[in-house]
């Protein structure tokens, strides 16, 4: 998966709104382009991009600049229903909707961890590096996020 899709995906999951997600994703690449000289080879390029995106999303969510939060979350709830694949069964659409909703309802600091781990497939170390967190913090936040999701998605777990 090309970087732009990954970066955009994280931003969309975090912000819940395609327009804002595109803004953040574009800014991620513009900053990366500008700071290419600062890029240290000891991290993967993808980790570096995730780090920039995550920081931009969390800043935006924390600042007053983020308006229409509720509207954005509503959009996020519709997200999984909006583009059903031709082969998707009704049941699967329902699951996707429930998953999207459950992720959107997570607290932001847990949401970013579970998105990076279970949707983007980053390792604990990469997440710790991208978010500038201790490994133990990543582990506990991820566990809380998964436990939340399990409780919300119980009916699909049979």
């Amino acid at each position: 998966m090309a970087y732009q899709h990954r970066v955009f995906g994280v931003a969309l999951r975090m912000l819940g709104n395609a327009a804002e997600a595109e803004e953040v994703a574009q800014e991620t690449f513009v900053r990366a382009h500008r700071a290419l000289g600062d890029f240290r080879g000891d991290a993967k390029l993808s980790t570096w991009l995730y780090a920039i995106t995550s920081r931009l999303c969390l800043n935006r969510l924390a600042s007053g600049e983020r308006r229409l939060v509720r509207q954005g979350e509503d959009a996020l709830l519709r997200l999984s229903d909006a583009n059903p694949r031709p082969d998707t069964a009704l049941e699967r659409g329902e699951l996707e909707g429930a998953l999207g909703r459950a992720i959107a309802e997570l607290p932001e600091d847990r949401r970013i961890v579970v998105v990076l781990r279970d949707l983007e497939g980053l390792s604990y170390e990469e997440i710790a590096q991208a978010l500038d967190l201790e490994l133990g913090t990543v582990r506990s936040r991820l566990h809380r996020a998964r436990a939340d999701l399990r409780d919300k998605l119980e009916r699909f777990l049979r």
Partner: protein
Amino acid sequence: MTCHEVRESLSAYLDEALTPDERARVDAHLETCADCPRELASLRATVTLLRRVQPVRAPVGFVDRTLALTRPRPWYRRLAEALLLPLSVKVPVQVTGVALIALLAVYLFERTPELKQAARFDARPDAPAEDRPAPALRPPIGAASTPPAQRAKPVVPAPTAPPAAEPGASQIASRGESDRPDTSGRRDAAPQSPAARVQPPPAAAPAPAREVGAFVAPTGAPPPVKKEALGAAQAEAERRQAGLERSQDAARSAPSSPAPRAAATPRVLGPADVIARVAVQDRDAAERELAALIARVGGTVVQRRSEEALTVVEAVIPQPRYAEFSEAVGRIGSWQVEAERPDLPALIRVLLRLQ
């Protein structure tokens, strides 16, 4: 290891993120505990669900839009963006501009008497003459309202004084009427200017034919003008006459100076002293010759109306040169006096009908 500690580690256990030591202890607990394996199973199922979430794709055109952002924009684009303000700025600026222009227009209108006069004329063309501070400003609408003051004006014979001196004279005249705005003086001057002598105000043109008839009627009969208006106009004409005479005495060098005392008599304000018909071939040419002649003998064209088959020229001729004038008119066309006052005043009012 308690169940609580184990459960906290189960996510990392699934991800194989535990140290070998931790992992061994969790494994040991899971073998003996009844609930923790179920907890592990539910977490594993949750992670499996999450991994099935469809990855999101960036929208079409995202890469191009992003590249456009990272590419330095050419100078002309930056200039255009700087010049073409965004709509959120442009619209308020334009609205403010329109409002300012409107305010300026109102302000100018309020401060400019000419514009106000013009607007008043348009609004109340039938207003009575007595209302006006300056009857001369009133445009000729019909025979009844033909301003007597306008007829009084030509009493001013500027015999040999250059035309440029005339506006000065009229300014002096208007200075005598202190209650009038300054602009009315300029208005009075307009019909006396050399251009106006040839081309009178267009409002005079459509005067009805019966008006001409009124002038042809008995010599010396007053025109059907309202009494008060006539009286006021006469008084004003006298005042103006006095002012003009003073100014002319200073400037004049012509031998044919009319007797000032006689000129001030109200009689000059009456209708024509002489009414004559002049049969000509070419009315326009005749009119031009006549205008030249009137100027030559030191007279003034008071009024001029052009109708289909008739051009009426009203002029004031100084009496000493009246003989010369009548002789010269005879050369312009066949001149036939229809009415003539027995005792001609110093300034003879002549009404010529060119046919």
